[in-house]
């Protein structure tokens, strides 16, 4: 059964999409897993990282974007989630040429969604007048995800910032939540609000998540404030469970998130350079988590 992982934080700019990309590619590359990524963020950052900007436009022209999916969800037409999947979405050459099943597939977002989303949400609310939009979204997507349960090992959501229905629905559908954050006081306060207000009070999901971890991003080892905050997190001061290895703030990561063309491929070493060890560490830890959740994968 596929494990569902949400990468979420209602604060923007903390590296959610970058973390989601590293996790998806890390799990496929280092652990041979079949990963389906759903980019629920109208900014489409993760989709552009995986497919390139031109690739995102192409996916939309082919009718394979979140926007097309949401349009159908606003009607009585049957929903076939697999129809919106772009297969082999990663530019890692090891995944393009893999014959053992390892892969990263994607339901791409599209930035046009930013302007169209309010209209889509309105038509969706009309169909479900008495149900919270996020609950209705989750209930429509759930059977489609269940139909893919044996075809993927991990289903990973990149959630938009803010307390918006797409983010809330993805969290409802997930068993594991990874919350990227940067190490500064404002971000940590926002993270605690995210847990208390959104996860505990509003969605009431915190207690039933199989695992919740914080992923520290844009980490500068030489920064004394960050070092102190990291020590406090590890000591339990913030009552947060953090992933063991922070992701460094590096040029390598900045280069990795730029895919120039949809027909350009890179090896994992070329793409991530010295950040590849961060990718491996993140993937190893998430692999441990999901192995515990399922009691072993691909049974």
């Amino acid at each position, binding site marked *: 059964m596929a494990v569902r992982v949400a990468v979420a934080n209602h604060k923007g700019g903390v590296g959610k999409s970058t973390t989601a990309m590293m996790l998806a590619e890390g799990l496929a590359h280092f652990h041979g897993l*079949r990963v389906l990524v759903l980019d629920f963020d109208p900014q489409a950052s993760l989709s552009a990282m995986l497919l390139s900007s031109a690739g995102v436009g192409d996916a939309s*022209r*082919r*009718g394979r974007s979140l926007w097309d999916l949401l349009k159908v969800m606003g009607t009585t037409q049957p929903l*076939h989630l*697999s*129809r919106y*999947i772009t*297969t*082999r979405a990663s530019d890692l050459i090891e995944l393009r040429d893999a014959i053992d*099943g390892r892969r990263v*597939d994607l339901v791409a977002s599209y930035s046009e969604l930013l302007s169209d989303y309010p209209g889509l949400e309105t038509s969706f609310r009309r169909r479900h007048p008495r149900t919270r939009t996020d609950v209705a979204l989750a209930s429509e997507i759930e059977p489609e995800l269940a*139909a*893919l*349960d*044996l*075809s993927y090992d991990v289903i990973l959501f990149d959630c938009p910032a803010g307390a918006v229905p797409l983010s809330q629905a993805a969290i409802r559908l997930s068993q594991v939540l990874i919350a990227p954050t940067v190490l500064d006081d404002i971000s940590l306060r926002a993270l605690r609000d995210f847990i208390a207000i959104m996860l505990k009070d509003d969605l009431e999901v915190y207690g039933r998540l199989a695992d919740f971890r914080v992923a520290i991003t844009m980490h500068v080892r030489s920064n004394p404030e960050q070092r102190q905050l990291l020590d406090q997190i590890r000591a339990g001061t913030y009552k947060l469970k953090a992933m063991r290895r922070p992701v460094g703030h590096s040029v390598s990561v900045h280069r990795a998130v730029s895919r120039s063309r949809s*027909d350009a491929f890179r090896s994992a070493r070329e793409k991530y350079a010295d950040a590849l060890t961060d990718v491996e560490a993140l993937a190893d830890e998430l692999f441990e988590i999901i192995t515990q959740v399922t009691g072993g994968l691909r049974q």
Partner: protein
Amino acid sequence: MSYSPPVDEEALYKPVHNFLEQRFQDRLRPTFGDLRHLSVITARAGGPSTGLWSKPDLCCIALWRYKYALEWRFDVHGFEVKPAARCDLTAVHEALNHTSMVHYSHLVWHKPDWNERDGKCAAILERCERHGIGLITFADERNVDTFTTRVAARRQSPTGDAVDEFIETRIKAADRKTLLDWIAELR
């Protein structure tokens, strides 16, 4: 949890559709070129007047080209789906019948216990090979990685009018518009 294979053919349409979208289309994509495709359940399309044997249960329409080539190509794949206990040589001929309207015809057989040495499996395999019908078997409809191509389909030569009629009568309007938009864009 024990697994019970579906008995009803209709219960297999959506899983086969998932397979077409998630795995089959990988085989259609040239290594360096481009592919656009559309997969549709056509089993109930076209109405009862078109006959028992005349409809593929699903189809996949592919527009593709090699990177260093001038032209886009257009292929229609038809799929005849059979549950575990209801596949025999007649099914191969059902799929063969579809070659008058599609470029590639495939028999998709839910066969959890496939064995080439089994008489029935061997007979169906041989008949598919003889007539150029693709044979795809699968053990568990819930897992697209259990789908295996046993025989690759050979390209047939339906008339252009027959292909047009198939698309016009079996594909719904929104998908036909998508195809026409692609054709206009890529021409």
